[in-house]
């Protein structure tokens, strides 16, 4: 089973251990991949005398990583030629072992270690915001993300890749439409509840009358078929379709990633219609780009027009 590292600060402690072990001139970078929850710690080493001495004095299988915490380890030659040194890394069921002796003939090498990270591990590094709802202009949501305190990480390079920025697109107001059949259904529920709750002996005749009314209401409901319209509304809200109502202004720093439904009834299987569609975009931050922003346009009118179209199509088919 994989052991996850909880935060970038925990990772820093582990990375510092590796850093202090390796002798020689080196610089370090960290890449935090928020889409796959992997952190790649990269240490670039100048294979100088100090490094050679250290490697020669090292025992066999001394430099190793447990597979429970580590997803992958790679050693790459940077100078004089570029290419992965595949035989420098061996893998067993429980360990990944690095043999630096294979690097002795090179000038510059790079060690990359990828760790499993717990979801949300980068949250303390990034402050993001999306408009809670569009208030200034009903079609625009503002998205932004920025590094909280990049320098405290002490790396020469920090890349936070694919950090999620979630926008709550509130759709409930647009779905406040008259769904045919609901009034009938309400009447039916009232009748059924009366039939089953207040039964007294001698009510047989009354119940028979109610039974007939119930039959008629059920027939009417079948005719009105609210499920069909509900299906049509649901289809408008499916991510592949709803995406048509969303558009980024600049497309520069933000990438569309996906959506899911959210509402008071957000338990899976219980969503009939959502209160909100959560739209996820992803952005990259680094020491060179410490902050990003963009504007998400929501074509609300078009969505509402399509809802009305679905309603009138349903009415015409009856």
């Amino acid at each position, binding site marked *: 089973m994989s052991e996850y590292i909880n935060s970038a600060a925990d990772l820093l402690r582990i990375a510092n251990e590796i850093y202090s072990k390796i002798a020689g001139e080196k610089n370090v970078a960290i890449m935090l991949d928020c889409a796959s929850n992997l952190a790649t710690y990269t240490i670039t080493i100048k294979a100088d005398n100090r490094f050679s001495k250290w490697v020669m004095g090292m025992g066999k299988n001394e430099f190793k990583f447990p597979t429970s915490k580590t997803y992958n380890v790679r050693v790459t030659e940077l100078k004089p030629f570029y290419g992965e040194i595949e035989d420098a890394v061996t893998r067993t069921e429980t360990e990944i072992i690095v043999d630096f002796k294979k690097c002795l003939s090179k000038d510059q090498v790079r060690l990359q270690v990828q760790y499993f990270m717990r979801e949300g591990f980068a949250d303390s590094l990034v402050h993001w915001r999306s408009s809670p*709802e*569009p208030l200034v202009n009903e079609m625009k949501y503002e998205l932004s993300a920025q590094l909280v305190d990049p320098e405290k990480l002490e790396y020469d390079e920090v890349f936070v890749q694919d950090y999620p920025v979630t926008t709550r697109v509130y759709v409930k107001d647009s*779905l406040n439409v008259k769904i045919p059949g*609901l009034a009938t259904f309400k009447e039916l529920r009232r009748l059924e509840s009366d039939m089953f709750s207040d039964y007294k002996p001698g009510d047989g005749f009354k119940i028979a009358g109610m039974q007939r009314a119930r039959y008629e209401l059920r027939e009417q409901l079948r005719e009105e078929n609210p499920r069909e319209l509900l299906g049509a509304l649901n289809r408008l809200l499916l991510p592949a379709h709803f995406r048509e109502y969303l558009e980024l202004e600049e497309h520069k720093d933000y990438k569309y990633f996906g959506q899911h439904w959210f509402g008071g*009834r957000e338990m899976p299987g219980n969503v009939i219609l959502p209160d909100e569609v959560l739209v996820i975009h992803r952005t990259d931050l680094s020491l060179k780009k410490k*902050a990003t922003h963009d504007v998400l346009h929501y074509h609300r009118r078009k969505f509402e027009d399509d809802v009305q179209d679905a309603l009138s199509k349903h009415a015409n088919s009856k």
Partner: protein
Amino acid sequence: MNAYDIPSVVLEPKSAVQNSEDGPAKSGLELFLSDDILQGEKRVPFYLLMKNLEIRRISLHTSRFRLVDLYNTKSFTRVRQGAIIEAKDLKSDDYLGGVLSTRTFKSSDVVANLELRIELTDGSVREFVEKRHLFSVRAQLAQCPKEVTLPVDADAPPIKVRLSGRPTATIAIDRESPGIELSIPREVASAYQLYFMSIQKGLLELKEDYPKYRRLVDKVLDEELSRSIAVYLHEVQKEFEKAKNDEEFMQSLAYVFVSALLEQESLRSALLVPLMEYLESSAASKTFLESPFSGIRVPVGGAKLRVKLAVHDLLLTECGEPIVIDVDVKSMKEAFVPLSTLIGFERS
């Protein structure tokens, strides 16, 4: 142009402020402050990007915002409603980030400012003034007779509440002593009950399979599904947030709800009862009732209706003081009256 699109005031010729994208050789400043802010928001971000500029000092001043924190600084001096950051206090000279908080105001729409004064080593000064509206909703009782006689016309509720302000609002209505208890109509209650029984069965099984979440499950089972499916699920969700990292458990929990739906007396009710609640919760434009089926069962003669209305925005901040409604409801016969037929909402 929309009246709310306040342009950022740049107190210098526009050409002098260059965007940081203009190329590596050029210098520039870019200030960003979030928009669409709700009153009571605690973490509104802003940032200043500086490119190839020799900064001497940055002075920051706010009105109606409160400075919570600054990023990328070793230290800074707090002054009244702001801060002064010397160049040596910046950890790197290209970025200053920060967080502002807001509070609630009497009015549903106030303007707040963030002012930045950037002094460069060559003696020149650049200034930014960013203005933002802080929005909220306010409710007030527009009409409230002392006495209401049943039956009432469902399309013309005798009590009227007027909401002002732009944000979406949800309204929670709770009983106040000595008013009559709130309840939900029998036909909805019976559908809820069936649903709750299936959830209970599933949750009890879940408790056996995951003994470490026993206490969480017990807490959820304690709740009574008497107000609305939405409120109940919200409470459940909140409890289970604590276990959300256990994917297997969360998946099993989701199946409990799916099977609760499938076990309903008919799939029709399973589908339509929550839908009815969804649609009936809409009280006016951008205004939703937390428990749309809530009502009172009035005995022969009448009863006292005394309820408290609390308004929340989408970030669950309470907007303004709650409204108390106190009315005598007279009736010749026993009747159930939904609150939505007694209290109407309108937005101005």
